[in-house]
């Protein structure tokens, strides 16, 4: 069993070929006649973290659900690991999602299951070896520094602890793609920083591809300008005011992508909306 704070080294699982992990091509979707996403196109390659910013109701969460095949687009193509989701029947999507981890906006923990059973859910469904499940649950909870809460139920946890359990549940199978839906939404600043540090730890230790939705600009700034130090088990600034080259920022506005680029590009943008958005 791992000791608290120990980081379990991931088994490198390279994505086959040079193709992007996530690829949106002219994707549009609307509900009740209202356009939510209009002609969205972007790609995220292996190891990249794509941060989606935008005001409430701009379709950020819908975009994540599209990427996981939980909803289907009205138009356009979505390719995940090179496979067009449109070509995968719904019943095969369940197996396909084994390579994707998702953290929901309000954690979406199963309230009738304990923390242990929530985190182990996917492995239990796969009928993995019980001893193996226990080991992985403890490793995963250790990663989010919440191993003491293993026997608690979601109702007994604080908002921040629920998010950490949700992260542990999402990463237990070491998926190649992680989707974070407002992981810091509704949390106090200190807890938010803890969650961002965990996401950064996941990014820098496991080097998985990630789409992260947030409305907090400081989350994007922290993720782009800090990295996780495995030795100190803390996050630290990139030297010489550098930024993470694998962190891409996208800003959604009026159902479209208003900006896409690095943090440096964002700060240099002459677009009046972007300038107003970043204050």
């Amino acid at each position, binding site marked *: 069993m791992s000791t608290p704070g120990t980081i379990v080294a991931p088994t490198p699982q390279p994505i086959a070929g040079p193709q992007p992990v996530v690829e949106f091509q002219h994707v549009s979707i609307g509900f009740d006649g209202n356009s939510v996403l209009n002609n969205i196109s972007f790609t995220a390659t292996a190891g990249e973290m794509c941060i989606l910013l935008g005001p409430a109701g701009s379709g950020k969460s819908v975009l994540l*659900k599209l990427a996981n095949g939980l909803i289907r687009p009205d138009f356009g193509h979505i390719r995940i690991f090179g496979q067009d989701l449109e070509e995968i029947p719904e019943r095969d999507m*369940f197996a396909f*999602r084994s390579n994707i981890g*998702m953290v929901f906006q*309000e954690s979406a*923990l199963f*309230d009738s299951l304990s923390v242990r059973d929530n985190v182990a859910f996917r492995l239990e469904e796969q009928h993995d070896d019980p001893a193996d499940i226990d080991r992985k649950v403890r490793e995963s909870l250790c990663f989010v520094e919440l191993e003491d809460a293993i026997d608690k139920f979601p109702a007994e946890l604080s908002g921040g602890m629920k998010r950490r359990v949700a992260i542990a549940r999402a990463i237990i199978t070491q998926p190649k793609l992680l989707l974070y839906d407002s992981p810091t939404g509704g949390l106090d600043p200190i807890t938010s920083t803890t969650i961002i540090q965990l996401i950064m730890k996941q990014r820098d230790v496991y080097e998985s591809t990630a789409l992260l939705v947030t409305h907090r600009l400081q989350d994007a700034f922290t993720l782009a300008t800090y990295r996780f130090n495995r030795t100190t088990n803390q996050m630290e600034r990139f030297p010489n005011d550098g930024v993470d080259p694998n962190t891409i920022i996208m800003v959604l506005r009026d159902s479209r992508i208003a900006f896409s680029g690095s943090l440096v590009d964002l700060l240099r943008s002459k677009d009046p909306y972007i300038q107003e958005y970043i204050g």
Partner: protein
Amino acid sequence: MQVGEFLREKVLAVQEYSLLSWQAISNIVRRPFYWEDLYTQADLIGVGSLPIVVLTGFFTGGVLALQSATTLAQFGAKSVTGELVSLSMIKELGPVLTSLMVSGRNASGMASELGSMQVTEQIDAMRALGTDPSKKLITPRLISTVVMLFFLTILSDAVGTLGGGLVAVTMLGLDASQYFHMAYQFLKYPDILEGLVKPVFFGFIIATIGCYFGMSTRGGTQGVGRSTTQAVVYSSVLIIASDFLISRLSIGIFGR
């Protein structure tokens, strides 16, 4: 709201309900099977409903004997009270009342439980974790309700006939042997068949309606409350409507 829009919504709802029902049925022959969930639901629906079903059946049989004996006495036919009670219980009241009780208890429970899971994104989380909610949540509830309602109805029929007998003997002065003889003598196989076919359909209605309203819940806790009420109302009305159809079909086939 325009009439066209209203109709479109209703047609869409029927389509979604039909799809959900078909998926739930077809899952019975598709792996994986969730035996543990099946047993849990069977315990919840079957064992959990035992007290209300026994009490309802007993008092229904009793009141049926009490009311019918008074009327039958006017025609000098008080002795056939047993026949009237057993036929009424086995063909109609046993299946219908048991189903209405189970509907009130379990269709509402399914709608509120699945509705809460829906509004808190637990259903989406389940799908994201690679599990088909239709297989894990709906099919076990469907099988459990159909199987348990079948046996609960048999129990209700028996307890109802027994309750009628107790009233007939202790309050109406009828002979116990005569009561049970009449109750048994006039009972034919088609009557029993009709009484046993009904809970299968009613169980299907309870489970699919409860799950449908749960899975289509929108709008937070208020939406959960709305779904729960709708599940009980729709399942109760459908039980009574389908009872009429099955009874008519039975009369058409067996002539009684």
